[in-house]
């Protein structure tokens, strides 16, 4: 895994540098700016200059705003991270709880009701969900602001009000995803011999579930949670755009519309780095929950 990250981050900027080539063919208006930014140099020279600056922590200037990108990105990342952090914690907590709840009560009425609900939620695209919650909670009920962002310094309630709709939009599909997965792995685990053994010892069901079943049932869930971080980042791009939330995703879309290539490069690089870190975190968590792979070849895969 560590090899993968190293390799991916090494090659990734190459892809982005190639983007400039495509840009050359379509954009006429940047010609003047191009000379100034020395964009007419051969690709590999540009790439080396860019990568060199990157290593020094310099992301370059935004073509449109003529400001250094690094602080812009940092601000945006913090806002997006707040959104993503709250969401992923909620997804894990609610999703796993629902999964265990239904998995333990397999084929009960509650299980069927929740499962059908999950099936529906998994099929609703985020951007449509966003429109629906805006319509209901901002349009008809008027309880919450439809779009925008308020910093925490404006007061906790104002901040919370602005963040409820984006977070709930991000969370619904993923909660359904995690709940379904946890449910099926929980059902499988509850049929295993060690659970029967734990029950035979006369342990209360609560402890059997929590201490014996859950720990093993969570292994696949954790792997998928990492994949969901990737989905979440895609969702964030959409959700930030719909709710006009000034995070990394909206900045990226905005930069693309404005053909502000350095910002696009930096944004994509930032997202990819976070994604790689999330995968690394998932691998570590996986090893923590599954002692079998802790020893042996931790480098493989």
């Amino acid at each position, binding site marked *: 895994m560590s090899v993968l990250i190293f390799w991916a981050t090494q090659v990734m900027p190459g892809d982005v540098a190639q983007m400039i080539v495509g840009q050359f063919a379509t954009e006429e208006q940047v010609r003047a700016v191009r000379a100034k930014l020395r964009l007419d140099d051969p690709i590999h020279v540009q790439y080396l200059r860019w990568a060199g600056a990157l290593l020094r922590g310099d992301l370059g200037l935004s073509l449109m705003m003529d400001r250094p990108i690094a602080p812009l990105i940092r601000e945006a990342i913090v806002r997006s991270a707040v959104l993503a952090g709250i969401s992923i914690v909620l997804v894990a907590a609610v999703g796993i709880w629902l999964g265990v709840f239904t998995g333990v009560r397999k084929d009960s009425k509650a299980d069927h009701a929740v499962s059908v609900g999950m099936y529906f939620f998994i099929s609703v695209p985020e951007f449509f969900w966003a429109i629906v919650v805006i319509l209901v909670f901002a349009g008809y009920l008027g309880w919450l602001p439809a779009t925008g962002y308020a910093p925490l310094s404006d007061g906790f309630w104002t901040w919370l009000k602005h963040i409820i709709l984006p977070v709930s939009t991000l969370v619904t599909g993923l909660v359904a995803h995690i709940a379904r997965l946890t449910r099926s792995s929980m059902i499988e685990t509850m049929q295993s011999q060690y659970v029967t053994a734990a029950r035979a010892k006369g342990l209360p069901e609560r402890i059997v579930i929590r201490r014996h079943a859950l720990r093993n049932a969570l292994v696949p869930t954790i792997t998928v949670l990492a994949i969901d971080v990737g989905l979440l980042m895609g969702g964030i791009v959409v959700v930030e755009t*719909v709710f006009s939330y000034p995070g990394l995703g909206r900045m990226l879309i905005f930069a693309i519309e404005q053909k502000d290539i350095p910002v696009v490069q930096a944004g994509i690089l930032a997202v990819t780095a976070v994604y790689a870190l999330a995968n690394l975190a998932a691998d570590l968590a996986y090893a923590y929950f599954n002692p079998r792979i802790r020893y042996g070849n931790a480098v493989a895969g």
Partner: protein
Amino acid sequence: MRWLARLPLSLLAGGGVFALIAFAALLGPAIAPYPYDGIDIMARFLPPGPAHWFGTDEFGRDVLSRLLHGARLSLLMGIGATAVSLLVGVPLGLAAGYYGGRVDESIMRLVDLLISVPPILMGILILSMTPPNPWKTAIAVGFIYVPIMVRLTRGVTLEIVAEEFVLAARARGERPWYILGAEILPNAWPPIIVESALRVTFAIMLGAALSFLGLGVHPPASDWGLMIAEARPFIVEAPWVAIAPGIVLCITVIAVNLVGDGLREVLDPRLKRGRR
């Protein structure tokens, strides 16, 4: 007709609904009550009624007609993208699994690289470089799912290569492409088909999301994602313009999901023995 009754309910229900939508999409222009880009300023924002079943939008265009028109693009996106990922991913996966060694190593490293970028970003990256066009969106979305297809096919191939009939074919001196095509591929299909169904839903959703962000088809043409995006400014005054494509999108995705679940039940022998 008895074989029909033995199929799982989810496959029948999902397949039926999907067939209906696909049929409507194919016949779209013929059965649409109005032209999809027919502007009628007098009939702006009409709520759903007998003349316009799903109402009209800000230019007085009939929402139902636009839905039918958009259905072609949205379905094309889903099916076309999946076809692209199959066409590229399956041969690569077969090669990686069969030849192993350096071939495997180089293909899988490429796959690792592609997988390290989140899907929607990959789409944005590809689509923002060049002018939009529905086919290009389909190809881009398909390209995003190539790594998943490669991984899956490779895994299945590795399992099958170890079987005796492959060894027998090798012993007969068959050429590699014959072994791949006639011995391995037919046995590798079931999981690939199940995965493909799943990919269709993801591709429809991703394609719609990209269109929604303004990176897919361009007005006045429309797919469901773009229709929802265009309806945003007047969502409170005329919610039906956004709700109609959204609901159709959800129904389509649910239908294809059901088909995927049904196919899995039919094709995956492990599931058949185990849980039911």
